């Protein structure tokens, strides 16, 4: 195959590219320039900096493959950053990595690769694509701690058919050792964390700078009593505990959490952690990489955050909405998050969480 290896300059994508070369593919390394702000010009946060581009180029030299930088900063700004800010503006909690996979890596990059005569895009994600009877199936990685099938759960079967994840069968420790053995200088580079376009990690400040201040009340979810003021409802996430600045102490000093964010009225409700428990999740924009789920309910394992636990439940489709009843409640699930459904290790489908409720007592 002719494969575009997306190379961030980190250890995972470097080893992935090396394995693609070993497998006999015709590989071209591509570093995606996703952000052009001054903050990315130096210092390594594990993604998108000039240093990372240079690392990726050196790895390509070592592998003897051509290397190019593709400037996708405009698409990234429109499809990921603007979307991220808009979701927060609407009081929701988006996952930008998932969005980047859906719209950039396995869309803009893949489309370009196919048009240029390539067959696939290879990345250093920890996940497996396995040929199934109904087409390609996405499965969890062998390394459960590193498994990234959640952030790939938005891919459809066409995208999966043109995706290669050479690390899916390996442990992260093996990948690091292999990088060392291969003499890749990136072997001991730290893993990337946080959101690549918010280098200082201060998401609330990033969002506030783009949405502006919109002060409102912090209220007790049960009594309606006003407990304090805030600078903007969009800076809060359901399940958040820190930075609430409550002026009225809770009875018995019990911890209080954000349990609801109403951007329209500017009201942020706080309350006891039990109020965060939900067992009915509704999602929009469902994606089914294989056979679509119908109105017949099926038993699934539902995952609601990148490295969260799988929760057993029953899933069905109502119109264009996904409805999942969880056997046990989950705590602190915010609209905008993705819910990814598994059957064992296989990703059945995913949707964007849109409404949650507590049904059982």
């Amino acid at each position: 195959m002719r494969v575009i290896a997306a190379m961030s300059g980190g250890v995972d994508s470097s080893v992935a590219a090396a394995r693609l070369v070993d497998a006999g593919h015709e590989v071209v390394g591509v570093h995606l320039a996703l952000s052009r702000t001054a903050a990315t010009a130096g210092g390594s946060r594990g993604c998108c900096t000039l240093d990372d581009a240079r690392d990726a180029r050196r790895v390509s030299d070592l592998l003897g493959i051509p290397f190019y930088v593709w400037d996708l900063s405009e698409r990234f700004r429109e499809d990921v950053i603007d979307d991220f800010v808009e979701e927060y503006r609407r009081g929701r909690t988006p996952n930008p990595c998932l969005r980047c996979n859906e719209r950039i890596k396995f869309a803009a990059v893949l489309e370009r690769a196919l048009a240029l005569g390539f067959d696939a895009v290879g990345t250093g994600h920890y996940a497996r694509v396995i040929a199934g009877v109904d087409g390609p199936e996405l499965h969890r990685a062998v390394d459960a701690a590193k498994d990234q099938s959640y952030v790939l759960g938005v891919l459809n079967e066409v995208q999966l058919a043109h995706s290669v994840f050479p690390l899916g069968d390996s442990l992260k420790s093996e990948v690091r050792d292999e990088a060392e053995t291969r003499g890749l200088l990136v072997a001991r580079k730290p893993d990337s964390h946080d959101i690549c376009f918010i280098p200082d990690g201060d998401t609330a400040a990033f969002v506030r700078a783009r949405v502006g201040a919109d002060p409102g009340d912090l209220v007790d979810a049960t009594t309606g009593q006003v407990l304090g003021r805030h600078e903007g409802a969009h800076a809060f996430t359901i399940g958040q505990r820190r930075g609430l600045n409550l002026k009225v102490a809770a009875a018995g000093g019990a911890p209080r959490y954000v349990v609801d964010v109403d951007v329209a009225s500017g009201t942020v409700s706080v309350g006891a952690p039990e109020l965060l428990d939900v067992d009915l999740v509704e999602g929009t924009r469902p994606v089914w990489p294989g056979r679509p789920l119908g109105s017949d309910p099926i038993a699934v394992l539902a995952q609601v955050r990148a490295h969260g636990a799988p929760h057993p439940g029953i899933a069905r489709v109502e119109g264009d909405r996904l409805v999942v009843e969880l056997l046990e409640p989950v705590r602190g699930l915010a609209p905008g998050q993705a819910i990814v459904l598994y059957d064992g290790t296989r990703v059945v489908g995913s949707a964007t969480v849109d409404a949650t409720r507590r049904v059982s007592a």
Partner: protein
Amino acid sequence: MDERAYLDHAATTPMLPQVRDVWLEESRRVGNPSSLHASGRRARRTVEEARESIAANLDVRPSAVVFTAGGTEADNLAVKGLFWASRSASGANRLLASAIEHHAVLDPVVWLQEDQGANVSWLPVDGVGRVRVDALAEQLGHPDGVALCTVMWANNEIGTVQPVAEIASLCREAGVLFHTDAVQVLGHLPADLGALGADAVTLSSHKIGGPFGVGALVVDPRLKPTAVLHGGGQEREIRSGTLDAPGIAAFATAVEHAVRGQEARSAHLLRLRQRLVEGVMAAVPDAVLNGDPGTGARDRLPGNVHLSFPGCEGDLLLMLLDAAGIDCSTGSACTAGIPEPSHVLLAMGVAEGRARSSLRFSLGESTTDREVDAVVTALPGAVDRARRAGSLSVKVG
């Protein structure tokens, strides 16, 4: 690929065999040209003979030749050094530069503006990338006085030859120092520096079959540009640093070759250029030739072909041609590898989209018909694919 088509001679050229011989021969010997003992004297003789040879070939005095570690350093020395010297002497704080200069001139000018408080007037160019002499004439009469004017002899991207003789003469009349970057011209056009009348001219060795890391600023011996590098006081204290005797001797050999064979080389390049342009136009009819459309060497560097392919991104075309065994360029390089639209094309009034869709093929002495034909063969398929990738008609998301 064993037999690549190398069509990026404006970036660098293959080292000539006789140059390599001279370099190897000199590198076997020890001696710092500044040392007083016999070994030093021998090295000094090598350097001075090289200086005399270069001066003779370019019709200038040997004392005019100031060796540097390449074209970028020579440009920096000319722009900063002559501006500083001229400003101290006359108080004039104005600098004139064409909008299409190479970054080795452009960036020092911007630095002088931003860091040193220079007033800069950027000289506009016309649609083919030629500096408008009327605009220059107007600026030369600026009441505050002008410290320095710099206009490249021929543009490295689009190949347009600038009216440097006319500019030199206008500057002379106005009493303004004039520098020109001749890096792309040497060996391709007649380069009689004595007759030109510029105060300073930049030359580079590796663009003419010489080694990397050597160049010269040919500067009127009556002028003393303020030093950029301070140290041992070599090169009349204009450029400190131990002289690279093997590199300089090899550079002199390359200059000799460049000047002696210029006419025949130019004819060879013109023939190949015509073959390439006609071949591409037949294969990709909507390609656009940027720069001066003239077929001679007087208006356009004979080895330069700069084309836009509407609907394509230049960097994708480059990648596809690279895979097909062809080395070419999008014209302007950037350290991060992120393509920016060329400032040269933008200055010519070319729209950003067309600017991003361009490729430069630069031919050299060693270029063959086979290499030119390889481009003509590979281009239609590459253009087709790049266009599909550009329009992103394949939707998978």
